[in-house]
């Protein structure tokens, strides 16, 4: 340890000149570190997307830091916080959206919580069973940036980029239609119900439907929509009819549409056009009168069997219906007279008329229609008449028909509704005829005929008595004589010991004997035919 060091012999180090640096190169390290750190920070700040707030009624399965915001199944952001609103009724979710998806956060973008949903019309969101619920985003069309949204309860049925059009249906009630209910065109599923809302006055319902392209072009202004839910059973003159759409629509309900075959319009309807939703196909196809003109008829007869809704026909084809049946005070005659209100549907009337382009034009204007009606009344002698539609129930309907030799009538258009001329019904005619027949029957002298008959019968009676008294005893003696003759005949001819019988028996015996003799002769001749020539020979060779 304590080794003696020869201090004198310690060698001298060599001097190598060296550049002197005031600052060490080492300072590069913190500079680099700082640059990197600041660079990352700047990049983070620059790539910071917007933070949005979405208010949901309920946020099932939404967790801060775990739930994603997805658009087309691509993550575009993440939920940062989930809080209750200040009044504890809603859930406020804040989410940070990636910078790259910033453009999606516009005014009319829509958010909803995607979760597994099982409805009658389908199952959706199954993937979320594994991945957890997420917040879905539907792209908007607006360019206006917005950062506060109200979340939807359910995913929107239609995305913005889906081609097709939205239409509105007006209905009395929702029936069995719900969001997602299918839409059928010729039994083809072409769209769905995407929403419904009660009208402002609460008296009707607005159903929003989406028709996928290219089927949306089949929706014209004339198209009729009806509820295709369940089964529609109807009994008509043609028999028993059952109308259904697909089995799915029978279960979950749906809406079908079709244009009436008579309508030639093929121009597609505008988007958001409003249509009426009918209860079934039959009503949809018939109740489409856009022009309805009311008229009044004054019948001078009983209205028994005429009810509201009874058809109004022209030559048997339906052209309108009865809207009211009642009585009216007639100030001129100071009497109460029956009054029948009817509605005529010119378009339906026109639909029966072929080649009616000119007529169609005329029917479209009120004046033209009036002139046309007046002409019908004048030239054709058209009159309204009550007729019996059903003999059994006595239901009446109003029939317009042509009558000959009726006086011209001027329709007074100043009154509303205008009065149309009527004709006493065929029923009344029938009654009069029957009465005539009865009167004639009444005039037949039945009493005198009876008297004569009585006399005749008395005479007949005397005759019968005379026959009884005079003819019958003689007849009796004649019969007795006849009987005696028959008995004597019996004794002589038929009785056992009657001589005729005896003789007959003897004669028969004689005949038998003769027959035996002949038989013997024939026998002999057969054996000895020569006897015919030689005569009978004695038997020698015995």
């Amino acid at each position, binding site marked *: 340890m304590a080794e003696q*060091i020869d201090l004198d012999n*310690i*060698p*001298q*180090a*060599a*001097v*190598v*000149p*060296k550049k002197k640096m005031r*600052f*060490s190169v*080492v*300072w590069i*390290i*913190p500079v*680099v*570190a*700082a640059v990197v*750190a600041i660079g*990352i*920070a700047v990049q983070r700040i620059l790539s910071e997307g917007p933070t949005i707030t979405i208010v949901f009624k309920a946020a099932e399965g939404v*967790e801060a*830091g*775990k*739930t*994603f915001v997805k658009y087309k199944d691509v993550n575009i952001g*993440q939920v940062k916080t989930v809080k209750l609103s200040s009044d504890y009724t809603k859930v406020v979710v804040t989410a940070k959206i990636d910078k790259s998806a910033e453009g999606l956060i516009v005014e009319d973008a829509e958010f909803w919580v995607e979760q597994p949903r099982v409805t009658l019309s389908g199952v959706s969101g199954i993937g979320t069973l*594994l*991945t*957890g619920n997420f917040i879905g985003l539907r792209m908007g069309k607006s360019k206006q940036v917005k950062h506060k949204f109200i979340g939807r309860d359910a995913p929107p049925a239609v995305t913005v980029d889906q081609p097709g059009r939205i239409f509105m249906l007006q209905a009395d009630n929702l029936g069995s239609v719900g969001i997602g209910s299918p839409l059928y065109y010729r039994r083809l599923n072409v769209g769905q119900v995407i929403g419904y809302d009660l009208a402002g006055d609460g008296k009707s319902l607005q159903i929003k439907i989406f028709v996928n392209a290219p089927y949306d072009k089949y929706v014209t202004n004339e198209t009729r929509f009806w509820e295709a839910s369940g089964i529609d059973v109807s009994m008509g003159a043609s028999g028993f009819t059952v109308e259904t759409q697909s089995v799915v629509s029978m279960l979950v309900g749906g809406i079908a549409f079709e244009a009436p075959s008579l309508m030639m319009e093929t121009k597609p309807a505008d988007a958001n056009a409003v249509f009426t939703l009918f209860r079934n196909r039959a009503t949809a196809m018939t109740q489409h009168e856009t022009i309805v003109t009311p008229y009044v008829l004054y019948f001078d007869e009983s209205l028994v069997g005429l009810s509201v809704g009874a058809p109004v026909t022209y030559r048997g084809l339906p052209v309108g219906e009865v809207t009211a049946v009642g009585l009216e005070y007639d100030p001129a005659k100071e009497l109460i007279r029956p009054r029948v209100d009817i509605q005529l549907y010119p378009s339906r009337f026109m639909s029966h008329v072929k080649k009616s382009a000119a007529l169609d034009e005329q029917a479209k204007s009120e004046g033209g229609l009036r002139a046309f009606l007046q002409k019908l009344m004048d030239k054709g002698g058209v009159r309204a008449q009550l007729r019996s539609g059903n003999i059994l129930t006595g239901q009446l309907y109003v029939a317009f028909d042509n009558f000959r030799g009726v006086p011209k009538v001027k329709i007074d258009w100043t009154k509303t509704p205008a009065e149309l001329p009527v004709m006493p019904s065929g029923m009344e005619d029938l009654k009069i005829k029957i009465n005539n027949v009865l009167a004639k029957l009444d005039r037949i002298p039945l009493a005198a005929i009876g008297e004569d008959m009585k006399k005749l019968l008395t005479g007949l009676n005397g005759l019968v008595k005379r026959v009884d008294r005079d003819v019958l005893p003689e007849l009796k003696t004649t019969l007795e004589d006849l009987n005696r003759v028959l008995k004597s005949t019996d004794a002589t001819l038929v009785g056992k010991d009657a001589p005729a019988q005896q003789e007959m028996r003897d004669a028969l015996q004689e005949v038998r004997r003769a027959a035996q003799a002949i038989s013997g002769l024939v026998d002999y001749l057969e054996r000895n035919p020569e006897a015919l020539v030689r005569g009978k020979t004695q038997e020698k060779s015995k």
Partner: protein
Amino acid sequence: MSPSVPTGIKSGFVLCEVCGLLTRPANVREPGRCPRCGGELEIRRQNAIQRTWALIVAAAICYIPANIMPVMVTSTLTSVEGDTIISGAVLLYKYGSWHLALIVLIASVMIPLAKLAALAYLLITVQRNSIKDQRERTRLYRLVEFVGRWSMLDIFVVTFVVALIQLQPLMSVKPGLGSLFFAAVVVLTMIAAETFDPRLIWDSSNCKEEQNG
């Protein structure tokens, strides 16, 4: 204090750190090279204070993102989650293992910070030629040097977990950017501890002695 302590500098000697040859330096500023092995002679480590400061500053810069950014990114089917060191410790604490949380907190948050603080303290005292608590400061330095490598524990855990948990697509773990910075902090502080010359702690007392004497 002992009145006169013989040191290499006072005696005009310098020890070659490579071959151990005791030499007389050419001059105090430029000790020159070892005549036997040619290694550069250093009376004190060159620019020790400046270098250590630079490394400490770099480590301090890295310390911030190391704690802010996620060290480990766990992605499962339902979520992608990044965990920072502190959030990991909080999570451990939440799940009831507070002692583990404490270990993580001490080993990964406190110790690097303490190292930085200790080195900074040593440098400042050296620069101010403090003669107080020289022994304690030397012990502190030894502690810093010793404890340095253990902070890499976190990085070990992350690398293990990343290698083991790769259950695509159910679950996978990826290292976060934070772990890179954390590793940088640890490495930089270790180098800083190396570049610092503990002899400087004692130099000031020698200077004082000289001034006194």
